[in-house]
């Protein structure tokens, strides 16, 4: 009998969801391809970068900055979902918090990988202890801590509760971390001078086309994030339902 419930619910969501899901996904793919075209071909070279390597590497900017934006957005979103979960205690909010962290972690890993590739030709080092780099690393480590915490708890209800608590606490630590690291670096002006070569402001001339491409990429990445969230949350809820049904069958 339970298997019948499983299969009927499965087909129901498929039939209802397929049109919206497919349209949304294809739309996101189209937007991302456009972003790729704009970033790699349409956007002009940054004028004051001299060597070709520097100019090619600068194009990482169009995906590096939006990915970092999505990373922070995902973190903020997961903290919000966690607060709602602790108040309402509904599975879906926990699934959303978890999904947001997982998607955010993917984007942040992209930031952490693309950053050094861009930094090497521009700053001639893979890594500097610039505030932005440091705070991104801390966020990345907090994300990983969140995933590890979830992995180490057996009871699903407790897992959701503890994860929510951790997400809320760590979201409060981000602004304080940011402030402290900023102040830590202003005491060493030499390193700040190297750090201000960062592309997001003042590093190279931002012509209107460069700026427009960046804005488009930020919007594209945000849509991409929402789309990934949509699929990941659906998958997570389905996984939990299968888990419940499996228990039903086993212990009947």
């Amino acid at each position, binding site marked *: 009998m339970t298997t019948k419930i499983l299969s009927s619910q499965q087909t129901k969501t498929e039939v209802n969801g397929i049109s919206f899901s497919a349209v949304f996904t294809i739309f996101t793919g189209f937007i991302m391809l456009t972003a790729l075209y704009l970033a790699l071909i349409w956007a002009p070279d940054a004028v004051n970068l001299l060597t070709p390597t520097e100019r090619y590497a600068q194009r990482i900017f169009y995906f590096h900055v939006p990915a970092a934006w999505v990373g922070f957005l995902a973190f903020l979103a997961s903290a919000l979902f966690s607060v709602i979960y602790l108040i309402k205690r509904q599975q879906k909010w926990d699934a959303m918090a978890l999904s947001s962290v997982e998607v955010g972690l993917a984007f942040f890993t992209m930031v952490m990988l693309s950053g050094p590739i861009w930094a090497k030709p521009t700053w001639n080092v893979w890594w500097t202890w610039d505030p932005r780099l440091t705070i991104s690393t801390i966020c990345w480590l907090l994300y990983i801590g969140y995933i590890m915490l979830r992995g180490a708890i057996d009871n699903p209800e407790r897992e959701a509760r503890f994860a*929510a608590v951790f997400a809320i606490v760590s979201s409060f630590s981000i602004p304080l971390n940011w402030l402290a690291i900023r102040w830590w670096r202003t005491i060493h002006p030499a390193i700040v001078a190297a750090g201000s070569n960062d592309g997001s402001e003042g590093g190279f001339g931002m012509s209107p086309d460069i700026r427009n491409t960046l804005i488009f990429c930020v919007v594209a990445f945000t849509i991409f994030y929402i789309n990934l969230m949509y699929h990941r949350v659906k998958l997570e809820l389905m996984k939990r339902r299968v888990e419940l049904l499996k228990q039903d069958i086993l212990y009947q």
Partner: protein
Amino acid sequence: MSQNLRRYIRKIFAIVGKDVATEIRTKEMVSAMFVFSLLIIFIFNFTFDLRAGNVQTLAPGVLWVAITFAGMLGLSRSFVLEHDKGVLEGLLLAPVDRSTIYFGKMIGNIIFISMVAIVVLPVFMIVFNQPFTHVPRLGGIIVLGVIGLSGVGTLFSAMAVHTRAREVLLPIMLFPVIIPLILAAIRLTAAVLDGMLFADMSHWLTILVAFDVIFIAISYMLFEYVVEE
């Protein structure tokens, strides 16, 4: 109102008293933390080859790594008895507010870690050849730092004890969160050792105090979600 407050504080200190009595009888946590922090100081001495020339820049970091690592050791044990011997169930059954348990455990942790730090401090001053006139101000900074460390550490310790990996998970959760605290404490320690004017460093003191207040408030609000069963 003040009657209620007095009763509340008495309940908190009943829990603190329980922890202190356990510690006085076993001497498990404080002695291990003390020896561990001394070992850290000596290991740093070998790894950095500390000499008169570089000791001023490295000493604050050595002191704070010793304190935070030893604190981590103590915090990871903080809820083990509660969990293994069923003390937590007893505390939860007692007719007290959940926040009482949090504050009781937190104050216990502050006492233990501060005790270790205050004993380690003179040793640190001697082996790194620092003037003893700095001790009162460094002691103040240490207490402020330990309050923040225990404030959020107690919450995470109550969580970590329910996980499979226990001691392993606590530092992974705690260190990224307390980075502002460590940074501020190290800056203030360096300022004291360099004899800088305190007014120049007051913004670090603000961060330290803000960290303590914010994280104790958050942990106080979230603790009941951690211990509910």
